[in-house]
């Protein structure tokens, strides 16, 4: 009989997570009296196998046709319990979760049991009206899009390509390599960054399963898990990629120079350029702001000297559409520009540099040929390295940027190696948590570095004494001495915070994913789903998700590849079953809903004079349901009846003595 509701309620203790602040016995007793409830059980961990078996056995033996689980958030274990009830032969959509952990036992100091009762009541009332839904499966496109060609994107792309799946790797800059290729040495092993990265970059370029799109940006994403359509803008290089041999004669002959972005403005590059010598692809681009042809229509030296005739001033941006099953976002981070911290003098005082500038200075291919030098060209006799510039500071970025302590130690080592200078590390706490980090800390300490614990108040060139004259003075409290100190040095290296990309908000919108309070992309679960996002099929890896070092980035990127492979290798994916449907008898054909649907899923049938909703296009937001003046659209799994029942349940202990009209 259709109306014979047989509801089972399962209350989880979650160890003491729930049982510690909710009276389970009282809750269990309360649930027994709810309409349609035939069995109530409590268990230490309902999500465990014996816990799930309780539910399965009851479905089989007691003939349950609705299940309520009062436990953690549905965002945690709804899939687990849906699988469990399905295994016992019940439609998975006949399950309702009461979230009595994240939104009850963990957050309230009192009233927990009363609230848990209300939540269980609401879940049971809603369960009463739940309807079965068929899950739908669609085929998955076996290609993957990786956005961002830094170490994270490179690693993810190579892993997927090695598994013989097509990968599109899209990079905004003219070359892949990202931040890592700008670095000189990497901590704690001190291996040369480009030595370990360039082979990987070369593999990307030559891999038969990688289609590399540099100087390109993703501009639109539509579709859904397994079937994304992505529009990519190919910015004009003004160099024909198919003809260019990468000989570099154009760069040699170009007479126009500007600051090199790659060298953080410390060196120059030409108007036609590759950002660095080992660029992949080794095809130059023309910067239209510097090129005199684009400014005045003259010069054309590059064109004249290019033997294969690859220069093409007429190139325009092109748009390409690709279809992929999964997307990996590996867009990296920006470095905080410390000039707003006026007292640190960045961009105001000579020889106050940021970490990336210092990296370029140390690099053999950098603007100083690997020499650590002052603006005057002389070697410094003392260098101060300032930690936590903008990090761990609620006036800027509250989080720890995680890599600064170690690269600051690396800098100390490099200064010692390249110069005779004394080095001061000015730190608040030394964080040496990674593999080999503490050992590295000891090694650098052994090299004779001065450690001063404190947060720098000011960097100034205003000398108070003779020994300070001509120096930069770093003023702070040495908190271990309990004294104010002034440290005269020749050079100051600031370690600025790693921050979310300036356009992270746009990217989040494009990908339909969320960002955390820190601005970085938000993973679905901080511990158990650190790579998945709110949107199925979109994964986030590397520093786009939060500051991390190279080993962690590589590990996460590999994990991202595994996630994407797991999705596409299955060949098919379950898609949203919670969609809207039209009751044709009630539809008046007013078409109000059509304009509201963000996915163009609603069409008007001229023949029937009613609207129709495409089950494939509908994503189940319910905006049409709420708007339909005739109440003709049903929001499956969130019907008016179900939600009304839930409201009644949630307010069961507040019910008015008389009914509203």
């Amino acid at each position, binding site marked *: 009989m259709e109306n014979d509701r047989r509801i089972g309620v399962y209350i989880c203790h979650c160890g003491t997570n729930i049982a510690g602040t909710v009276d389970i016995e009282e809750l269990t007793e309360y649930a027994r009296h709810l309409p349609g409830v035939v069995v109530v059980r409590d268990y230490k961990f309902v999500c465990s196998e014996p816990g799930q078996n309780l539910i399965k056995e009851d479905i089989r033996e007691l003939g349950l046709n609705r299940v309520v689980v009062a436990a953690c958030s549905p965002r945690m274990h709804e899939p687990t319990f849906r699988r469990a009830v399905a295994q016992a032969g019940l439609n998975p959509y006949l399950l309702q979760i009461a979230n009595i952990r994240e*939104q009850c036992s963990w957050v309230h100091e009192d009233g*927990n049991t009363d609230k848990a009762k209300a939540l269980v009541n609401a879940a049971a009332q809603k369960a009463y009206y739940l309807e079965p839904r068929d899950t739908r499966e669609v085929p998955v496109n076996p290609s993957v899009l990786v956005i961002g060609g830094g170490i994270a994107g490179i690693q993810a792309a190579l892993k997927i390509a090695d598994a013989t799946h097509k990968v599109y790797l899209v990079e905004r800059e003219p070359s892949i390599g990202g931040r890592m290729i700008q670095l000189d040495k990497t901590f704690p092993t001190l291996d040369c960054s480009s030595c370990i990265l360039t082979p990987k970059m070369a593999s990307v370029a030559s891999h038969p399963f990688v289609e590399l799109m540099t100087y390109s940006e993703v501009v639109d994403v539509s579709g859904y898990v397994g079937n994304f359509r992505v529009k990519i803008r190919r910015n004009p290089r003004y160099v024909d990629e198919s003809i260019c041999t990468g000989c570099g004669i154009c760069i040699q002959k170009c007479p126009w120079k500007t600051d090199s972005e790659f060298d953080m403005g410390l060196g120059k590059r030409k108007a036609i350029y590759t950002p660095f010598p080992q660029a992949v692809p080794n095809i130059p681009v023309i910067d239209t702001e510097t090129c005199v042809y684009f400014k005045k229509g003259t010069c054309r030296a590059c064109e004249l000297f290019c033997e294969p005739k690859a220069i093409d001033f007429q190139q325009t941006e092109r748009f390409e559409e690709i279809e992929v099953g999964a997307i990996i976002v590996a867009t990296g981070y920006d470095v905080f520009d410390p000039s707003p911290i006026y007292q640190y003098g960045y961009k105001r005082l000579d020889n106050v540099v940021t970490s990336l500038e210092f990296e370029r200075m140390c690099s053999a291919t950098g603007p100083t040929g690997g020499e650590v030098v002052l603006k005057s060209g002389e070697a410094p006799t003392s260098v101060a390295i300032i930690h936590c510039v903008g990090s761990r500071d609620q006036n800027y970025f509250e989080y720890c940027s995680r890599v600064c302590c170690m690269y600051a130690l690396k800098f100390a080592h490099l200064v010692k190696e390249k110069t005779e200078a004394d080095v001061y590390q000015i730190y608040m706490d030394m964080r040496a948590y990674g593999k080999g980090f503490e050992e590295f800390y000891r090694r650098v300490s052994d090299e004779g570095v001065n450690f001063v614990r404190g947060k720098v108040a000011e960097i100034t060139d205003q000398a108070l004494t003779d020994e300070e004259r001509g120096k930069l003075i770093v003023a702070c409290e040495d908190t271990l001495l309990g004294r104010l100190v002034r440290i005269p040095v020749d050079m100051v290296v600031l370690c600025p915070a790693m921050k979310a990309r300036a356009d992270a908000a746009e990217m989040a*919108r494009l990908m339909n994913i969320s960002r955390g309070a820190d601005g970085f992309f*938000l993973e679905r679960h901080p511990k158990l789903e650190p790579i998945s996002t709110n949107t199925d099929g979109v994964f986030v890896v590397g520093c786009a998700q939060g500051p991390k070092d190279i080993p962690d980035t590589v590990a996460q990127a590999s994990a991202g590849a595994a996630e994407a492979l797991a999705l596409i290798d299955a060949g098919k994916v379950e898609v949203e079953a919670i969609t809207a449907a039209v009751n044709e008898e009630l539809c008046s054909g007013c078409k109000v809903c059509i304009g509201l649907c963000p996915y163009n899923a609603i069409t008007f049938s001229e023949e029937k004079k009613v609207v129709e909703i495409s089950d494939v296009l509908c994503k189940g937001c319910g*905006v049409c349901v709420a708007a339909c003046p005739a109440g003709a659209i049903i929001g499956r799994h969130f019907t008016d009846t179900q939600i009304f029942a839930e409201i009644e349940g*949630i307010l069961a202990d507040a019910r*008015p003595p008389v009914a509203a009209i």
Partner: protein
Amino acid sequence: MRSPNGEPRIVGFLCNWCAYQGADLAGTSRMHYPANVRVVRVMCTGRIDPTFVLKAFAEGADGVLVAGCHAGDCHYKEGNYKTMRRVALLRKMLDQMGIEPERFRLEWVSAGEGAKWAKVVKEMTAELQALGPLAWWENVREA
């Protein structure tokens, strides 16, 4: 029956993608806030029919809190804009019914804003405590 301690009851309608996750984050971060709020999860605030809000008041709620994604962050592109428009009308209706404006609140809480969720609930609970129960039935005259 009113709750024994006369505490206000707040029904929260939260979208699945931002506000509900924000509330979950408040949980995983063990932020404390009053138990007065009870949440009904919907996929998008765009699903919230004004009748849900009225139903909640009719069933004895002292306040209703609708929370969804920030402008531009809607998982379904623009459901929250539709909510904004709908809520403007709803507020007028509530006003005509004599329901104080403090009893209905629309907030944007992202998945990363657990602290904001806790703060909003704290604030609204305090406001409703100051306002006292809605108890509309005590003001309904016999026809």
